[in-house]
């Protein structure tokens, strides 16, 4: 467990000192919001706004992939990744530390993106803010768990920036569908559908377990 805290602390402190990942994710996410508004402006009425929650998740997803791409890229410098692999600790906890650090960063970016999104698309998110944050966190957990696993693989392949989304996106469909459905119901009807939450919870659990168990073989040199 101490490995988890050590990796989490190391990642957050190094991010706090440089802030490059957070800034890149935040600016990129804002750009995506602007581009999405220009490409698909919402009309008036619930029918014309039905696609808006989906767009919010596209922005989250892009920001998440950008951040995850950097999660292990920094570990390549000075062969830090080899040292992580050599550390006499349970590698699953190294995975959890890396995934939690990405999760925290994504939550911050999600908050900024939601505010920009609410302003651009004229949404009143305040009455559902708590529940929306819960859905965003569940989606981010799924994205970061399997994303961290694939990021550790993609960083040691050719075309690493391209490889991560290629690996990640086909597997993220349950997270995306559950999160978009929950957000849709929340924004349009003010309710939180239990089946969508169930799907998110189960997917997060399955992804976390698979990633925790298989990270061991991914980290080998």
């Amino acid at each position: 467990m101490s490995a988890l805290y050590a990796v989490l602390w190391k990642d957050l402190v190094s991010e706090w000192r440089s802030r490059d990942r957070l800034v890149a994710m935040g600016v990129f996410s804002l750009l995506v919001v602007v581009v999405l508004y220009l490409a698909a402006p919402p009309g008036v009425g619930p029918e014309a706004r039905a696609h808006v929650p989906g767009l919010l998740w596209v922005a989250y997803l892009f920001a998440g992939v950008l951040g995850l791409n950097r999660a292990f890229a920094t570990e390549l410098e000075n062969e830090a990744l080899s040292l992580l692999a050599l550390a006499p600790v349970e590698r699953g906890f190294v995975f959890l530390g890396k995934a939690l650090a990405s999760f925290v960063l994504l939550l911050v970016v999600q908050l900024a993106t939601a505010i920009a999104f609410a302003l651009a698309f004229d949404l009143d998110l305040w009455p559902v803010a708590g529940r929306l944050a819960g859905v965003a966190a569940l989606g981010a957990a799924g994205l970061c768990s399997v994303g961290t696993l694939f990021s550790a693989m993609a960083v040691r392949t050719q075309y690493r920036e391209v490889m991560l989304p290629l690996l990640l996106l086909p597997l993220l469909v349950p997270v995306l569908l559950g999160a978009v459905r929950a957000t849709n119901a929340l924004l349009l009807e003010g309710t939180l559908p239990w089946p969508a939450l169930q799907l998110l919870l189960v997917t997060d659990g399955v992804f976390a377990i698979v990633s925790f168990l298989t990270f061991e073989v991914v980290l080998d040199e």
Partner: protein
Amino acid sequence: MKRNTKLLRATAGCLAACAGLWAFFIWRAPIDSMQGPLQKILYVHVPCVLGAYLGFALTAASGALYLWRRDERFDRLSAASAEVGVLFCTLVLLTGPIWAKGTWGRWWTWDLRLTLTLLLYLVYVSYLLLRSFTEGSERAARFAAVYAIAGLTVIPLNYFAIDLAGGRTVHPENLGRGSLGAGMGAPFALGMLTAFAAFAHLLVRRLEVGALRAALDRAEAEAMRREA
């Protein structure tokens, strides 16, 4: 290598015999009163699904076996199954829309089964890309095995996700016993047999290529060691 040649000849013989009979029975099969000759695509489409699912299941199973035993033969089996599976799935995704355009009036619909098959296809195409973009055969084998296992675990989740999103199915249900009309059973059964024979033949061929590549890599490494 000798054993492989014998196996290749056997599977090629089976394939040729089955394919000949299959074509004959498809030609003789009755023409559907509603869909016309287009319905005969059933005898190609469904058997290809068998090859695709068989390939993907074998990829994940041999990937898991590789992680357990670290025997490179399992990895070669995994890579070969994925390639053959992707080939069959491509055929499924090509023949399906041809049939759909004739019967439903559109090439594609986001139906539960169609979407699941497409996602499965994308997962295994990404699997092949991961293999080809990873340097070092041992590392590629490990990464690919992990990805194949993750790809398999996501199938039931995808099922619930698409069901939840209202992916009502318009695709015909699985064929049950006695649901085929008179004269349709023989070409259908032969189609399944041909797909299986084609799958086995291509798999053995691809395995042979994998074994040759591994032998070449070993010979090159040995030559370099001697030079050094």
